[in-house]
């Protein structure tokens, strides 16, 4: 099966560009230029050099011995948590700031949920000396205080999204409204594989360095580029898209996406979009969406602010619909336990988003020779307060 975006921005039935006319010129400019810019030699040189020397790539592919013993398979961790700023998010913001410069944009806006994308955006803006405004839900600002201050230290202005549920969805709305009001000099760095075409594909391409490296690294570890499973958590789905990207065509590699089940998928407090969603349109693309019968977007819930989003990237809706990826979900409790387990078995405290991917290992059955690559998308420093509140360690 081919997982490829068509010229209108669709992955099968999902994607596209559902935007008001006010955003059309900006999105069109990006759509018409991103491919050319990304492929230009000077872009690639600068991008690769920053990924290496600023981000610290390639990130290790680490054989997790004790975790492997526990689950009866060979489990490798792709250490995106070791990226500068603590998560995979920076791969995309490096790419997009270089894109913005080549489009002649002078100012940057971004949305953030947990604050990781906001920090990664504030970081590259500091690096390039560009003005940066990050929209963040007022509720998220409260539960992710350290990241708010990190952004401010880096010189970004953090604006509270006070509309709607005051979380990631509303931060995205506010960023889009800001872009409507500032259409010529501003680039919007979207943090996940969501939004109108070409964002989902562009962000996936910037994140695809993850699976590009996995292939090379696994070859030296295992003598094959292809694991049996690639496992990643999905909120919007940028780390999963990056980890899956170079495996889409290898059907013998099982792609496993893990969503946040919050307090349980039957509890009314969940963010598992493929379980609870239906096709719909939000933030510029047609995708699976948690919504009422009347088409109003429903507030998701997860302990993890980074997975607390009512949709998923259109590519993931497509992977789900076609069965190319298997979707699991993990509750708050399962994720927190998995986070503690990794801390104790491997000496790595994962981000709570990532802990959801780890929790899925419990739900899967493996053969001893199975090779599993799990994308360790972020580290848990930002989540200390949540771990402490949860307390069971």
């Amino acid at each position, binding site marked *: 099966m081919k997982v490829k975006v068509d010229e209108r921005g669709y992955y099968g039935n999902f994607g596209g560009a559902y935007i008001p006319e006010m955003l*059309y010129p900006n999105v069109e400019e990006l759509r018409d230029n991103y491919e050319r810019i990304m492929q230009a030699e000077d872009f690639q040189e600068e991008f690769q050099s920053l990924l290496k020397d600023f981000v610290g790539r390639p990130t290790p592919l680490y054989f997790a011995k004790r975790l492997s013993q526990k689950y009866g398979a060979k489990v490798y961790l792709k250490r995106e948590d070791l990226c500068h700023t603590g998560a995979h998010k920076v791969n995309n913001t490096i790419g997009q700031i270089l894109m913005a410069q080549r489009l002649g944009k002078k100012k940057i806006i971004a949305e953030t949920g947990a604050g990781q994308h906001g920090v990664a955006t504030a970081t590259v803006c500091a690096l390039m000396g560009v003005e940066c405004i990050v929209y963040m839900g007022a509720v998220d600002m409260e539960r992710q205080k350290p990241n708010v201050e990190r952004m401010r230290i880096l010189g970004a202005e953090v604006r509270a999204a006070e*509309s709607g549920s005051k979380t990631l969805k509303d931060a995205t709305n506010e960023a889009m*409204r800001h872009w409507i009001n500032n259409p010529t000099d501003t680039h919007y760095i979207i943090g996940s594989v969501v939004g109108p075409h070409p964002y989902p594909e562009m962000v996936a391409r910037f994140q695809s360095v993850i699976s590009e490296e996995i292939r090379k690294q696994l070859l030296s570890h295992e003598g094959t580029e292809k694991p049996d499973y690639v496992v990643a958590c999905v909120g919007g789905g940028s780390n999963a898209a990056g980890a899956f990207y170079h495996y889409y065509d290898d059907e013998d590699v099982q792609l496993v996406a893990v969503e946040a089940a919050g307090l349980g998928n039957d509890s009314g407090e969940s963010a598992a979009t493929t379980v609870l969603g239906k096709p719909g349109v939000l933030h510029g693309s047609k995708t699976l969406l948690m919504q009422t019968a*009347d088409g109003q977007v429903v507030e998701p819930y997860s302990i993890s602010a980074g997975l607390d989003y009512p949709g998923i990237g259109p590519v993931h809706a497509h992977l789900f619909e076609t069965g190319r990826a298997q979707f699991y979900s993990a509750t708050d409790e399962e994720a927190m336990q998995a986070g503690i387990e990794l801390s104790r078995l491997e000496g790595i405290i994962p981000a709570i988003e990532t802990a959801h991917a780890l929790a899925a290992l419990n739900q899967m059955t493996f053969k001893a020779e199975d090779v599993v690559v799990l994308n360790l998308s972020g580290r848990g420093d930002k989540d200390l307060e949540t771990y402490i509140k949860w307390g069971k360690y």
Partner: protein
Amino acid sequence: MTKRDMNRIEELFNRKSQRVLNVYFTAGYPTLNDTVGIMESLEATGADLIEIGIPFSDPIADGPTIQESNGIALDNGMTLKLLLEQLEGVRHKFGLPIILMGYINPIVQYGIEAFCQKCQEVGVDGLILPDLPMFEYLEVYKPLFEKHGLLNIFLITPQTSESRIREIDQNSNGFIYMVSSASTTGAKTGISQDQEAYFSRIKEMNLKNPTLIGFGISNKETFDKACENANGAIIGSAFIKAISQEGVIANNINEFIQSIKG
């Protein structure tokens, strides 16, 4: 209903080409059952057409005033289904053209064909769906709109390229909604020199459709200015503010519309 030869929006522009006043309000705001009452007051006070907003949880093209009215309408229990029920029978007592404006998702969930059919039944004349892509309109929606006598109204902005304006003009009917500035609704007030240059540029293009200017039209001064540059104007946020005030809603509407028309 009886079959009409000409759409009410087309009839209006055939009859009137200057100072056309289109008023927007959000269905289900300020209270759930205000919809029809507001329509009747608008007709009585001399509005020319009305645009009813279908509330949505995430109205990204709208500023704070209309966002808030959407949120309150949803809290009041407004749904697209209920709005269409409220409009049943309204044509016995209401003569102005009716436009429904809404983000695409609630309409997709309702079912596009069922929606068009119901619009025709209750006497809706036109639709403004700001986040519907042009190609999808042409391939999927247009045949249904035509079958059910609905006109499709597109937006243009100061940033819209000339070639796209031509494409939009080609594929619009009724009128073109000229967004006055790069903004969300209600974000800016007044009309600047830059905007006037944009208005003249559009005027000189001699579009086949009439134009109405919206966004930032809030009082007599801005309405007059818009009417010098287009066939009329659309008032949204300022009207929502007017009906949010204390007092009898019909009186507030009357006072506001009189103040605009002068």
